[in-house]
């Protein structure tokens, strides 16, 4: 039995497999969130009774769980590059954003009262480092040699998954977290930040789309998955990555724009 899902080298079947490490991680995050909600009950900043923020967090956590557990994790670890990038989009892009949206405002206030942590987060999540960390991380964690080496062991697969989640949190932080306050990060810049991430084609995804041969030995030399072949699956993976990332960034940019419009309307009404 594996504690974290890694490449198996066995023919695929639909037999369910437990990954205890994933359950433990999800349980720990859920317990941490419950404790956070108790310590920092919803305020007006959380939009009333906080049910919206809780819904965001729970949805994010469920998506994270779905990305890391059977069957998606098993398919992504051994058989299909397309499942692997779907895992990334869920665990490294969608889930971190939703979970960050679910953090009670009071919890961010607590960070503000810890100067060292506040300064560290301020530097780490400045839009420029956040952009670089996310994109370099995305490139490195999808580089063929890295994926092939990491997916071969449970510890490697775990490290890759955690790097995705962490990269996603850093990416969304300057957009969604209220601290440190960034008055200079105007909504137009936020839209630019998102648009740039939606447009960019990172090297591994260009390789997935345009390479003549399968780039990941993990998937090329895996027992065949019915109905596909490694090259077509790899091209599908590249297309999923490009199209879905662009959609996610587009939706987020539209939400930033709508929020900006609402705030402008409030400002105009108040003035």
């Amino acid at each position, binding site marked *: 039995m594996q504690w974290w899902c*890694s*490449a*198996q*080298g*066995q*023919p695929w079947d639909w037999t369910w497999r437990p990954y205890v490490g994933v359950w433990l991680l999800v349980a720990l995050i859920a317990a941490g969130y419950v404790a956070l909600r108790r310590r920092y009950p919803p305020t007006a900043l959380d939009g009333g009774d906080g049910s919206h923020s809780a819904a965001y967090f729970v949805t994010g956590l469920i998506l994270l769980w779905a990305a890391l557990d059977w069957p998606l994790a098993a398919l992504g670890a051994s058989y299909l590059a397309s499942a692997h990038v779907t895992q990334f989009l869920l665990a490294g892009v969608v889930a971190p954003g939703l979970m960050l949206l679910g953090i009670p405002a009071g919890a961010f206030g607590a960070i503000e009262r810890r100067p060292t942590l506040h300064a560290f987060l301020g530097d780490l999540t400045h839009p420029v480092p956040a952009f670089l960390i996310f994109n370099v991380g995305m490139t490195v964690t999808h580089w063929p040699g890295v994926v092939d080496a990491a997916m*071969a*062991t449970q510890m490697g697969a775990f490290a890759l998954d955690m790097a995705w989640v962490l990269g996603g949190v850093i990416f969304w932080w300057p957009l969604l977290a209220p601290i440190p306050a960034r008055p200079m990060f105007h909504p137009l810049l936020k839209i630019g930040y998102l648009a740039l991430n939606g447009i960019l084609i990172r090297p591994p995804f260009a390789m997935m789309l345009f390479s*003549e*041969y*399968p780039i990941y*030995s*993990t998937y*090329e*030399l*895996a*027992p*065949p998955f019915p109905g596909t*072949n*490694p*090259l077509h699956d790899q091209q599908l993976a590249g297309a999923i990555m490009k199209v879905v990332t662009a959609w996610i960034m587009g939706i987020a940019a539209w939400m930033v724009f709508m929020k900006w419009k609402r705030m402008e309307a409030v400002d105009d009404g108040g003035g």
Partner: protein
Amino acid sequence: MVLKRALIPIVLLVPLAACEPPGGSDEMANSPLRGSIVETGSERPRFTLSDTHGNPYSFEDETDGLLAFIFFGYTNCPDVCPIHMATLASSIERLDPADRGRVRVVFISTDPLRDTPDVLRRWLDSFDPGFVGLRGTVDEVNAVAESLLLPPAAVPVGAGDSYTVGHAASVLAVTPDGGTRVKYGFGTRQEDWATDLPLLLQWKAQAP
């Protein structure tokens, strides 16, 4: 690594060195091939088995002047056989039609009980209808394997219908002039085949 570890129990991985003739040559040492040259200056292998139509297939006659790949395996193989056949088929498909016509893939079944001619034909057709399937008794097939310096098949006795067969995990290429044999272990990728196929098609064994 995990993939390879998982496969070790079901294939006979005989160290390459054990199959090579002693000494070697410059051709072996300086080869631009990604596969390993295991024999040079030899003659085209001679053996006859039955094809999937039940007709005798003389390897020497049928592949004369062609680049031939020989692989010992079985259709119920969960991993090595379908992976080798799939990567080889994808790579041959990329050759231009004239070169494609100069390549033969000869799959020799190590599981004659379950690999009936029909089963073998259907399985090979799923990769490439041009692949040749050969059958014989286990003893006949093992005699061929041993003549090619490959390990014999290990077929379990009295195991019912669900069993795995130990077999060589390498594909053996025989160059068009018949003089050079090149071995490709499990893990050979499409890019490796794409590099070596044009070289193998032009290969001429150096004079000793």
